[in-house]
C-alpha cells in the first residue's frame, strides 16, 4: 500500500501533471492559432476587444449575474469552482508536493481551507443532483458529465476526509481514492470539456471572430459544390 501511495505521489502525479500541462498548452496554442488564422482570412478584422475582455472578465466573477438564470445551479457551480480551485491550489500539502520543483506559494490555513473544500463539495453534489433530477439539465447531460462530477466529488470528498480526525475510512484508503481519482481528472483535462479551464479566455473572442467571414467563402462553397458556373437560387 505504501509503495502504491509513493508511486501515486511520485511518478503518477508527475505523469498526470505533464499530460495536463502539455495537453492544455496544446489546446491553447490550437485555439490561438485558429483565431489568428481566421482573422488572417477574414477581410473584416475589427474586433471589439474591449467588450470581449470586459465580458470575459465579468464572467470570471459572475456574482451579479448568477441569480438571473438557474440560480441554484449557478450559485452551486460558482461555489464548486471556487472551492475546487482554492483547495487544489492553496492547500499546504498540495504545495509541498511541488516543492521538489522549487515551487512554493502561500497556503490557506486550516480550518478555513476545510470549509472552502466543503463549500466546493456541496456545490458539486448539488450539480450532480441537478443533472440527475432536473429534466432540463438531464436533457443536456451525457456520460462524461456525470463521470467527471463523480470523480470530482470523490477527489474533494476523500481529500477533505483525509484531513479529519473523525474519518472512519482508513487513512491510506482515503488517500488512495483521493490521489487515484485526482490523477484521473488531471489526465482527463485536455481531452474533455474540462479543457474549458484553459480555453475560457479564448471562447468569447472566438465567437466574435467566428462572425468575421471570409470574403469569398460563400462563392467558393458554391463553386466547389455546384461547379464554376455556380447555381441558381
Amino acid at each position: 500500500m505504501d509503495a502504491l501511495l509513493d508511486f501515486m505521489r511520485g511518478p503518477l502525479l508527475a505523469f498526470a501533471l505533464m499530460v495536463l500541462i502539455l495537453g492544455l498548452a496544446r489546446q491553447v496554442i490550437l485555439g490561438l492559432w485558429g483565431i489568428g488564422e481566421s482573422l488572417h482570412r477574414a477581410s473584416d478584422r475589427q474586433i471589439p476587444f474591449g467588450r470581449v475582455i470586459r465580458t470575459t472578465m465579468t464572467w470570471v466573477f459572475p456574482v451579479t449575474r448568477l441569480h438571473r438564470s438557474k440560480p441554484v445551479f449557478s450559485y452551486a457551480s460558482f461555489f464548486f469552482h471556487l472551492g475546487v480551485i482554492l483547495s487544489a491550489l492553496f492547500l499546504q500539502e498540495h504545495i509541498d508536493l511541488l516543492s521538489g520543483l522549487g515551487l512554493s506559494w502561500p497556503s490557506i490555513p486550516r480550518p478555513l481551507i476545510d470549509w472552502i473544500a466543503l463549500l466546493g463539495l456541496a456545490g458539486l453534489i448539488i450539480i450532480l443532483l441537478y443533472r440527475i433530477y432536473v429534466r432540463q439539465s438531464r436533457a443536456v447531460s451525457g456520460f462524461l458529465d456525470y463521470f467527471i462530477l463523480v470523480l470530482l466529488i470523490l477527489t474533494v470528498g476523500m481529500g477533505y476526509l483525509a484531513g479529519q480526525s473523525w474519518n472512519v475510512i482508513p487513512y491510506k484508503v482515503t488517500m488512495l481514492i483521493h490521489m487515484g481519482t485526482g490523477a484521473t481528472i488531471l489526465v482527463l483535462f485536455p481531452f474533455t470539456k474540462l479543457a474549458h479551464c484553459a480555453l475560457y479566455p479564448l471562447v468569447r473572442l472566438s465567437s466574435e471572430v467566428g462572425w468575421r467571414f471570409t470574403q469569398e467563402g460563400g462563392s467558393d462553397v458554391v463553386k466547389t459544390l455546384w461547379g464554376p458556373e455556380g447555381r441558381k437560387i
Partner: protein
Amino acid sequence: MVETVKETKTETIAEHGTTVETGAERKAAPAPPKLQPYFYHVDRVPIPEDRAQKFLQSFAVILRHTNYRFVLDMYARSMTRCGRCATSCPVYQVTGDPKDIPCARSKLIVDIYKRYFTPGGWLRAKFIGDDPLTNQKVDEIAESLYRCTACRRCSIECPMGIDHGLITHLGRYALSEAGIEPKGLVVSTREQLEGKTRNTSSVPLPALVDSLEFLEEDFESIKGAKIRFPMDEEGAEYVFFTPVSDYLMEAESLMGIAAVMTAAGVSWTLGSQCYDAINYGLFYNDWVLDRVNNTLLDETRRLKGDKILIGECGHASRAAKMFIPTFNRGKPIPVINIMELTYKLLEAGKLELDPNVVTERVTYHDPCNLARTGWVVDQPRAILHAFVKDFVEMTPNRQNNYCCGGGGGTVSLDEIHKFRMEIGGRRKMEQIRATGAEIVVAPCANCKKQLRELMNYHQLPVQVMGLHDLIMRAIRMPGAVPVGKEANATPTATEISPATSSREGATQESQVDAAVKSSDS
C-alpha cells in the same frame, strides 16, 4: 413512360399544431408518395433522398472554405452544457421541451463536427460505437434550427461565451447548400437577385415612384409642409435602403423619415436600381448574404454616395453593418441605421418635436439585431423621451430583450404562423401586455409584422408602429403652412389613428397594387 404529375400534399405536423399544404412537381412512381417531414416548405423539390450525404458534403465544403471550423473546434472542446441558456430562450420558456434548449440544439451540429471531422470522432466510431448521420437526423436538425429565432439571447447568459446563434447560422447554411431551405425565404431572395423587379416583394420601379409621390402629397395635406423622396441623386451623403415591404406597409414610417431628412436638410437619396435592404442571407446562406450586400454597395457606388443608410429594420441593419466590411471589395463605405442619424440630428438641434402630441402610453421593443450587442439601444430611447410623455419600458429590455417571436426569418414563413403566435412570440406578448401601453414602437419591418399579427391573435388593443411614425406626428416642419384646424399642422393622436393609419395603408397598398398590375399588363 414516366409521367410528370402535379401533386399537392397536406400534412399535419402535430408538434407545431399547424397544417400546411405543399405542392411538388414530382415523377409519378408506383409507390405511394411519402410525406415529407418538413413543416416549412422546402423549395427545391423533391427533398433530397440522400440528404444526410448531401448535408455532410455541404458541411465539409463550408468548413474548408470558411472560418467556421475553428469556432466549432473551440466549442467542441469547451462546451460544458450547463444549460443556463435554457432559461433565457423564449421558445424553451414556453415549450419546456429539452429539444429547444439552445445548447442541445447546438450539440446537434457540434456532434456532427466531432463525429465526421475530428480524429477523435473517427476513432470513437471505429472502436467504441458509431452514431451515423441519417436522413431522420437531418430532418430533426432542420426542424430544430427553424424553431430558433436566432435572437441570440442565449449568448449573453452563457458563462463560457458560446454563441448558439452562430451555430444556428452555420447549420442553416449547410442545410441550404444541401437543398433544404424555406420557400418563404428562397422565393423572395430569388426575385431580389435574379428576378425582374430586383426586390423581395416584386414591387416594380414605376409603382415605387408613384407611391413616393403619393406619400409626398399625403404628407403635405397632413402637415402643410413639403417633403421629398429624392431618387437617383448623385453625390448625396446618404444612400437610403429600407425593406421594400415598407413601401407597401409603412407609409408613416417613410413619411417620418423623409420629414426628418427634409427638416434637418440632410443630403440623401434613394436608388432606382436597388431599393430593398432585406437580406435573408443573414438567416440561411452566406453566399446570399454576400450577393445582397453587394447590390447595396453597387448602388451606393453608382450614385457616388458617401454612406449607406438603413431604414427601420433590425436584420437589414445588422446584415449591412456587420457584413458589408466583409463583402465590400472596394473602397470602405460606412453603414448607419436611421435611428442613429435621427438621434444625431436631434442632439444637434436640427429637429423640433412637439411634446404635446403623443398622449398615449408608449413602450419600445428592441429589435434583437439592433440591441443584442448594444448598438442601437439608447438612441431611440433618447428620441422618445424628447417628445413622449408617458413612456414605459418593458422588462427585460435593451440587450436582454425578448425576441418578437418572428426573428431569424421565421416571420416570413406563414406555415408556422401558429407556432410564432403561441410559442415564439408569447413572452413578447406578455411583456407588452404588462406595460399597459397603447402603442408599441418596433423599428423593424420583421418585428412590426410579427407584433401586429401577435396583437391581433391575442386580441390586445395595442398599435404597433415604427419610431418615425411617431416622429411624423410630433415633428414641427420649418415653414409649414397651417392645415385645417391646427397651426404647423401637427396632427393629433386621432388624426393618425389606427383606423386612419390602416386606411391610408390600404390606399397606399391599393395604389401600389394598381401600379403593379398596370406594369404587369
